[in-house]
């Protein structure tokens, strides 16, 4: 490994020189302070960015992405290239342990009074590594069921998607939330098995069998929000495991399409704010966090993203129809029933990856 290290250094130096010359050339034009934000589609709507820029004089560069790409991008640069990122809370600690890509959050710079305290505390707990906190909550939502009530009113839980009645008319993702959801729906608790690899493997084996069995029912595995919305909107599929936000968007167009909490519980996720290890605009990042958590601004983000935020009291500013849809999906009992993702221990994702590969390869 010794000479490898030497060589790696050369490689990194050269690529570093190339990248930095590029960056100098690029940033020379922009004099003002810049916040490079790596986030999800809809989390930084143009209207919000404009208000922020006008108020703070900080320019915001938005890059849309997803959990895996965020981690991969930061891993490739050792935590450089962005000033603020928004991974899901369950994906932070394992990535930090594995790749060391984040910087701890200075909680004193966060206006914690703006946040729903239960969510803030939960996120802090889940993103703590070696006593340091790496994430604070922003947007939350669930993976639930979106169904066309005219044609698929019988679907109450994830496993109902495998009912032969709906053969070729359902869709879900081939991603880890689906594995977790099916496990719950089959009466198992995968989260409880997170720290018991053997047990988890056992659960995954059962889920794999179920998903292979169910494959003939699936029209296509959706891969992005647009594909999902197109499938449901065109009525090519009548039921889907979907993000609640996407489901509510469709309800606004076609009231027959509704989002319901499955009987085994919706899967709750929270997207956070985290600082990349080599962030260059830390102050600007805190300014942005405190800015978007204001109730009125947070409500604008809810309008754009389709999901609610951890901002205290922002519900009041959200359009009445949106709130109604939310309440229809989540009566108080359903909220209590949400299964929140705990942090993923390292190594599980590799196991899940192979399960998904085998499901995809199955005929």
């Amino acid at each position: 490994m010794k000479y490898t290290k030497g060589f790696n250094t050369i490689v990194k130096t050269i690529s570093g020189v190339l990248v930095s010359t590029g960056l100098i050339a690029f940033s020379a034009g922009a004099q003002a302070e810049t916040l490079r934000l790596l986030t999800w589609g809809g989390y930084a709507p143009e209207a919000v960015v404009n208000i922020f820029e006008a108020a703070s004089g900080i320019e915001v560069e938005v890059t849309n992405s997803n959990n895996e790409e965020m981690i991969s991008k930061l891993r490739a640069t050792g935590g450089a290239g962005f000033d603020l990122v928004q991974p899901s809370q369950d994906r932070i600690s394992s990535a930090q342990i594995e790749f060391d890509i984040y910087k701890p959050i200075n909680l004193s710079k966060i206006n914690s009074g703006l946040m729903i305290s239960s969510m803030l505390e939960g996120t802090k707990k889940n993103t703590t590594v070696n006593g340091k906190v790496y994430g604070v909550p922003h947007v939350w939502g669930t993976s639930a069921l979106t169904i066309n009530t005219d044609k698929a009113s019988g679907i109450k839980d994830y496993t109902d998607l495998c009912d032969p009645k709906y053969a070729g008319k359902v869709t879900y993702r081939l991603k880890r939330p689906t594995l977790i959801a099916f496990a719950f729906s089959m009466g198992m608790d995968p989260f409880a098995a997170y720290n018991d690899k053997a047990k988890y493997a056992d659960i995954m084996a059962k889920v794999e069998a179920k998903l292979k069995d169910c494959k003939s029912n699936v029209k296509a595995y959706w891969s992005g929000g647009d594909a999902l919305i197109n499938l449901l909107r065109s009525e090519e599929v009548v039921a889907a495991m979907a993000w609640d936000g996407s489901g509510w968007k469709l309800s606004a167009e076609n009231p027959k399409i509704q989002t319901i909490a499955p009987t085994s519980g919706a899967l709750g996720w929270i997207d956070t704010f985290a600082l990349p290890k080599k962030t260059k605009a830390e102050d600007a990042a805190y300014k942005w966090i405190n800015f978007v958590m204001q109730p009125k601004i947070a409500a604008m983000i809810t309008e754009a993203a389709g999901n609610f935020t951890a901002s205290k009291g922002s519900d009041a500013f959200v359009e009445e129809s949106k709130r109604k849809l939310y309440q229809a999906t989540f009566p108080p009992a359903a909220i209590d029933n949400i299964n929140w993702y705990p942090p993923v221990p390292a190594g599980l994702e590799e196991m899940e990856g192979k399960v998904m590969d085998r499901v995809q390869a199955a005929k």
Partner: protein
Amino acid sequence: MNTSNAARLGLILLLAPLLVWLLALVILPHIDMLLISLRERVAPQVYERSFANYAEFFTEPLYWRTFARTAIMSISATALTLLIAFPVSYYIAKMLRGRLKGFLFLLCLVPFWVSELVRTFGWMILLRESGVISNVLQWTGLADGPVEMLYNDATIMVGLVYTSMLFMVVPLVTTLDSLEDSLVEAGYDLGGNGLTVLRTIIIPHAMPGIVSGCIVVFMLTLGNYLTPILLGGKSSMWFTAQIYTQFITRFNWELGAAFGFLLLALSSAIVWTGLKLSRQTLSESMG
């Protein structure tokens, strides 16, 4: 002595940008990748040198089956592209003259004015169950209900052939252009029919173009990512998608890098075999 030194210096200066480019952007990243592919993660941020990633490819049937499927479909797509592109190219090169020739040639280029993503979405709009073709079929009474033409291997094939057409037509038109009409006429005059003229004169003449077109199309198809992902069905696997998955979704750079090198080696082996079988040399076809 002085002048030759100056000439050599001049040559070095001329080549320098190219060499720096090659070294920094091609050779170094590849060496880095090779080193990554040769290590195995034993604990968080601890790695050991090993061939485990390469062994994984051969021991896990899923991976080499994905590669085999990708290779077979790429070869089929290449053959199909050749089959369609050959008459088109012959028509453009030999039957047309002047402006119409340029116009048809340009038509082959038109799909490349939009990005691959847009092109692929175009196919999705056409082929999906609630799409244009399905609706036309129902409207004309040729189909009773909606017809799904998306999400299967045939659709991938259509997409791949469509994307590859230009890269086959260009070398074919170039070589066929250089075929003298009198050779074809002599072929007929001496008693050959259309088929023998095609087999003994036109195809042997076009062979360098056929081979270079096939190599380019095969490599492009093998390395395609969007078309198989977007048009393919739920069972569709593509080797480049597997590499992407390893790098991005699984954070397994080691396996991804190993797959990358396997793709390079295996596809080179396939091209080499193809050249041997068609008794062509690379320099002849590319020169």
